[in-house]
């Protein structure tokens, strides 16, 4: 191990010596300039921060707009952005943000406190149809505002550069919510002028302006020369080319025509590309805040018996499934992914043990096994994974019939109380919107999600854990952050005693970029920005 490390260090030193111009060592040495091309297969949907909610527009919106807070590049650490500083009251009910002076929207007007209030109200207003509105339910007066649509009482602006947010009950995720796209600041006059088309003509305060948008073809980002954060962004221009099949994008990348294949490496090419030594520095493997799991509906016999659910956990050979998808994941033993605060490294989970699983089934009075159904989304590799699970279950006597359906039907079945006994979550798996463990509980394992049309497909409802979740969410003092993470971690490992899920793996994102672009702070492995933090990436030919 040591020898390998020494070798790679000397290799890196060699490379530095060979290309001294291409790799500035410190962020402040990076010269601005240059351009890059990113390709995507599908259209970019709206860039309206209140509405955009897919993995492509998510990072693009972060470069056009800003929020009060942000994450330190390459990490999940919260830092001030449009807010210069912030203060949380002792009881965790009042958040006061002091705004930066002189930040300008792309239209030249200065951003002020009223804009922050307007933007949050816009997201919470049902007329906006924001998929993120539900996150802000803790703000005082939220329910009234959803009906009256006039003045969200919990948000006040004592002066032009101060925003005060009062909560009805403590919510430790509040700071994350102020770094979330749905809270990003938009100028009222532009939104009112453009109406629902604001998402195609976005105006923010961010590092880039949208200078051209040809539907179905390309979007061009131009550097915002008045960006408040001097030195950023590094690139003058980013062109997003739309409509390129991932296989073709990869070919073009290898020919040097493009810089980032936004959809990543197609599964069929994965082994070939990652094992080519020429790509060693160009391929990045990123941990995602994602867990693939088998949910077991605790209201449908025999999954109402905890032994049965534990047996399923022990029957699934996770290593084999990870190999099946070319090691593009790591085996999981708890709902939280390893990159999430609160992940319990010491927790062992249910080890692979078919004999133990059989014994548990026998204990539950099911020594002859039983017949059930496993729902799965019909897009590769999910049916293959479900087949592997099916084979594993067959070994302990559970005959699971595969229900391979399109995504909509699987989600619909999961949201009905007697809809689906088991679901393999692949393709629809929960990817966290923000790096906080609560994001993995409330909707998908809490009582609130166990409703018609909800996302709690296991229909698991543990009042005791719900109460502990509320307690953890009330720990709003930043000094309690570690204690809170631990409390959350314990909630998930305790939940695993009831085994409503069989966690299978945590997927990794794989990106590939050209030699023309590079970046500091693990820019290609950023947990918040996929495929890359557009503000931080720089052009090697501009150095």
């Amino acid at each position, binding site marked *: 191990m040591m020898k390998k490390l020494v070798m790679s260090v000397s290799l890196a030193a060699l490379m530095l010596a060979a290309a001294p111009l291409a790799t500035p060592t410190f962020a402040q040495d990076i010269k601005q300039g240059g351009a890059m091309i990113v390709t995507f297969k599908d259209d970019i949907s709206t860039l309206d921060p209140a509405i955009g909610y897919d993995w492509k527009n998510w990072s693009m919106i972060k470069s056009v707009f800003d929020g009060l807070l942000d994450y330190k590049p390459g990490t999940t650490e919260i830092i001030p952005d449009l807010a210069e500083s912030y203060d949380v009251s002792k009881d965790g009910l009042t958040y006061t943000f002091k705004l930066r002076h002189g930040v300008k929207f792309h239209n030249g007007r200065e951003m002020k406190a009223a804009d922050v209030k307007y933007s949050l109200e816009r997201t919470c207003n049902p007329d906006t149809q924001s998929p993120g509105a539900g996150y802000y339910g803790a703000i005082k007066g939220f329910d009234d505002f959803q009906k009256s649509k006039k003045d969200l009482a919990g948000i006040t602006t004592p002066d032009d550069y101060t925003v005060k947010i009062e909560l009805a009950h403590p919510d430790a995720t509040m700071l994350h919510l102020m770094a979330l796209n749905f809270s990003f600041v938009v100028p009222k006059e532009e939104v009112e002028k453009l109406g629902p088309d604001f998402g195609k003509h976005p105006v923010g305060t961010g590092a880039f302006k949208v200078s051209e948008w040809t*539907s179905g073809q390309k979007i061009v980002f131009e550097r915002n020369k008045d960006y408040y954060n001097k030195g950023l962004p590094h690139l003058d221009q980013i062109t997003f080319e739309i409509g390129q099949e991932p296989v073709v994008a990869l070919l073009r990348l290898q020919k040097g025509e493009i810089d980032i294949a936004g959809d990543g490496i197609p599964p069929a090419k994965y082994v070939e590309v990652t094992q080519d030594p020429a790509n060693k520095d160009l391929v990045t493997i990123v941990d995602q805040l994602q867990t693939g799991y088998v949910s077991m509906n605790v209201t449908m016999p025999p999954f109402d018996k905890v032994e049965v659910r534990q047996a399923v956990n022990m029957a699934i050979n996770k290593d084999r499934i990870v190999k099946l998808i070319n090691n593009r994941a790591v085996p999981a033993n708890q709902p939280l992914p390893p990159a999430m605060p609160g992940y319990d490294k010491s927790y062992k989970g249910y080890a692979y043990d078919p004999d133990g699983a059989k014994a548990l089934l026998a204990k539950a009075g099911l020594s002859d096994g039983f017949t059930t159904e496993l729902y799965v989304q019909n897009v590769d590799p999910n049916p293959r994974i479900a087949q592997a699970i099916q084979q594993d279950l067959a070994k302990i006597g559970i005959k699971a019939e595969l229900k391979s359906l399109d995504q909509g039907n699987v989600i619909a079945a999961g949201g009905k109380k007697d809809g689906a006994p088991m679901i393999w979550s692949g393709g629809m798996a929960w990817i966290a919107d923000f790096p906080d463990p609560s994001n993995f509980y409330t909707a998908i394992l809490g009582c609130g999600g166990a409703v018609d049309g909800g996302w709690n497909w296991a229909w698991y409802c543990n009042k005791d854990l719900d109460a502990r979740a509320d307690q953890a969410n009330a720990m709003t003092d930043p000094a309690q952050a570690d204690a809170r993470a631990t409390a959350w971690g314990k909630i998930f490992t305790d939940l695993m005693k009831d085994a409503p899920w069989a966690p299978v793996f945590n997927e990794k994102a794989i990106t590939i970029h050209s030699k023309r672009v590079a970046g500091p702070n693990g820019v290609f492995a950023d947990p918040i920005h996929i495929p890359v933090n557009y503000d931080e990436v720089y052009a090697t030919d501009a150095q």
Partner: protein
Amino acid sequence: MGYILRRLIQSLLILIGVSIITFAILFALPNDPARQVAGRTASPSQVEDVRHQLGLDLPLPAQYARYIAKLAHGDLGRSYIQRTQVSELIGARLPASLLLMLGAIVCELLIGLTIGTVAALRRNTGFDQGAMVGALFFVSMPQFLVGYALLYVFGAWLGWLPLSGYGSFRHLILPALTLGLLGGGWYARMMRSSTIEVLRQDYVRTARAKGLSRARIVLVHVVPNGLLPIIAMIGLDIGYFMSGIVVVESVFGWPGIGQLTWQAINQIDIPIIMGVTLVAACAIVLGNLLADLVAPLIDPRIKLK
């Protein structure tokens, strides 16, 4: 005149039928649009709010009436995912698709007519047999396979043509060829048999007996007459193209409505699926109508009945 009127009324009835079928798509697809728009953090009451805003809580006939009323104003609705007017999305992509279809028509005529005519003139030779097997091959090959093969050979391997994209004549060649090869294969076979038919006609024998040159006989007497059944077919091609562009545009990254359709199907973006279906159906009805109306102008033997 009565015939034209009758055909127009028929076409209109077909379009009304199409609008009902398109409307039914909204309910046939396994998806709850209100939930899709409201997002996963929405409470049940928020979802109902969105359902009301989208008008999805109205009784069926009222929803259909609303749909038709909007349609009459050229309003195809707003995409659930892109949140843009569907008419705008289709409008932005239509020119690319029309250009691609035009290119494909040129390709299929060039390929089909030359190969078909030559094969007919050299009947039962090696060329004839080879050409007909080749034509059958391209008629039977899935277009995405042909597309990727052409892309790999001419784009990646030889590097003569761009790998994908839009904007210049060079970009058009491979997708137009891929889309046109299927029709080209058909036309080669049709042109061959219709030319053989014409070659047997009395007027060709007379022309030959008069001592006309072979080139003149072929170009003036044989080809124009052999062409007639094919011209009638071009109008019908629009239907094949409408399905073909979904595949071809996706392979070549061609920004037309085929690519839009494929995306919308994958994302279950119902307003786009409805809009594209309607536009495609209109195009096919219009294509058939044109073919019927134009045929008598080209061949006086066909009478309007």
